[in-house]
């Protein structure tokens, strides 16, 4: 006689919700979301309208700029960030190869998507991180939300985003941001919390206001961590471009998808490697920039 047979039924059969009730529950929630979409969809879309126009404008700008000028601008940014001539040459070569292999336009679209979403993540993420660092209670609320954002499968939140905003740039951007924003929030919070208590006491002794303390002491000292957060956010945004292209965000991601649907091995590899190239450039530059800031602050520190 097995263990199952000896136990009463309520121990072996999970007391699950009735099938009909469960179905009604799901249908009820779906229906109320649909009603919500009907009533507020347009308002929400209007709320995102400036962002959409900005994205459209920015993409047109990147696509409209002559390619030599674009390469020059990108190399200049790399130089300002990394101050390394090898990095600049490497970037120039990588971009020339991308262009030569016919991926220039898609790369510009991806660049536009990743830049704008990084910008949005930083603009929202850093203030949220600061807020979190000031109160343990806020931190206790936000941390689980960040955990959910990082682990929930992207397809689950693509459904409501699609129903609210349809397909295109903004839904793609939101999908990217949901996944990519947690690191910058977490590391801003962590960086500020790690600032030496003695330094804060000293600032207090000199009569700094809370605002001065934040802007002139805590944030500068937290910069290395903050930059690590920004760097992570950029990397995660790049990792999401393929998923974002599932809901109509264009660029290298949609080319990768096309390759996956058709088993175009080389096409997939080339576009995938173009994403990697952008990632390496972004990563090295933001890391070097972060390190330089760190050196700087350590000098003051010591």
């Amino acid at each position, binding site marked *: 006689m097995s263990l199952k047979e000896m136990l009463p039924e309520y121990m072996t059969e999970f007391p699950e919700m009735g099938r009909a009730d469960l179905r009604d529950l799901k249908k009820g929630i779906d229906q109320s979301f649909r009603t919500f*979409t009907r009533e507020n969809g347009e308002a929400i879309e209007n709320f995102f309208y400036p962002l959409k126009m900005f994205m459209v404008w920015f993409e047109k700008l990147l696509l409209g700029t002559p390619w030599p000028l674009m390469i020059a601008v990108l190399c200049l940014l790399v130089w300002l960030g990394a101050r390394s001539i090898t990095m600049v040459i490497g970037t120039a070569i990588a971009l020339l190869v991308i262009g030569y292999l016919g991926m220039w336009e898609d790369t510009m679209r991806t660049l536009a998507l990743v830049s704008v979403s990084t910008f949005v993540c930083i603009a929202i993420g850093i203030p949220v991180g600061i807020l979190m660092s000031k109160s343990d209670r806020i931190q206790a609320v936000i941390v689980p939300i960040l955990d959910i954002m990082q682990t929930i499968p992207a397809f689950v939140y693509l459904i409501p985003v*699609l*129903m609210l905003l349809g*397909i295109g740039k903004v839904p793609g951007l939101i999908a990217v941001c949901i996944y990519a924003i947690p690191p910058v929030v977490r590391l801003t919070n962590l960086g500020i919390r790690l600032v030496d208590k003695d330094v804060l006491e000293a600032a207090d002794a000199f009569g700094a206001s809370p605002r001065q303390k934040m802007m002139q002491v805590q944030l500068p000292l937290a910069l290395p961590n903050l930059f690590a957060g920004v760097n992570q956010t950029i990397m995660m945004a790049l990792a999401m471009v393929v998923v974002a292209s599932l809901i109509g965000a264009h660029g290298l991601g949609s080319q990768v998808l096309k390759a996956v649907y058709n088993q175009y091995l080389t096409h997939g590899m080339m576009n995938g490697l173009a994403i990697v190239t952008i990632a390496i450039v972004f990563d090295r530059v933001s890391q070097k920039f972060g390190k330089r800031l760190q050196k700087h602050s350590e000098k003051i520190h010591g």
Partner: protein
Amino acid sequence: MKKLLLASAMMAASLTAGSAFAECGSIKMAEFNWASGELMANVDKIILEEGYGCEIELVVGGTSAIFTSMNEKGEPQIAGEQWVNALRDVLDPALEEGRIHAVNKGPITGLGEGWWIPPYTAEAHPDLKTALDIIEHPELFPDSEDPSKGAFVGCPAGWGCQAVNANLFKAFDMEAKGWKLIDPGSAAGLDGSIAKANERGENWFGYYWSPTAIIGKYNLQAVPFGVEFVGNEHWTNCIAKDDCTDPQKSAWIKSEVYTLVTDDFYKGNADINAYLAARVFPGEVMGAMLVYMADEQAAGEDAAIEFLTKYQDVWTKWVSPEAAEKIKSSL
């Protein structure tokens, strides 16, 4: 040894005596891995088991896998909803040589691919009768990212239909008329754009296919193209290809679905062949069933029972009165 033979003979005899239709026996039947395929397979299964005393084993698969197996191995014996456009090269010789028989050349009515608009758009603009009329009015379908252009939602990048939509877009000169070809990215993106437009009552113009839950749910209307089909040769060699330089205006190629059976099966099962030939799902009924399956998240078997219960006037015409009685009493 003799005893064993005798015993097995007796067993076989008692088995055949037990079932009303001795010739039927056990059959393998394809269950295609999409909603309407699931439903049809399960309806056939219940009808053949309860009404004709067959024993049906369902084999799950996709279009080409099922066909290859039927053609090469003679199994499964029945494929209810075989989409044949993509199989022409292999199907035609198989039909000619008599390895495979098409017992029904239209098991679902009103099916096919093409361009669709929501019913309220059709109602509000009765003058938009064909695709030719619609493409003169891009302003009715503004693209959200560039409202000065009309949005035509095509097929996700990488699908076979992407080339067709892109080439027809070119053939109908839609870019010059102020249209933009939107790539929805994926099936979910395409469905989402239809759902969003319909939930909000916005005009929508784009590609889809039927029978599908989303067509049934929003009652999308197929748009006649207003031009003739250009012919198989130009369609296959140009419109369906990525590198077509000079696509001609054309209606969408007619999608054909057959019910196929293998030769062995065809020869010995006249009554079942007659059932399969009579079994035609009206498009609206199929659409309604697919909506039911999506809404209730019902699997094939539950949906088949729902269909047999709810649409008795449809399926009782497919079978003999005696079989109908048996099936009804089994529900």
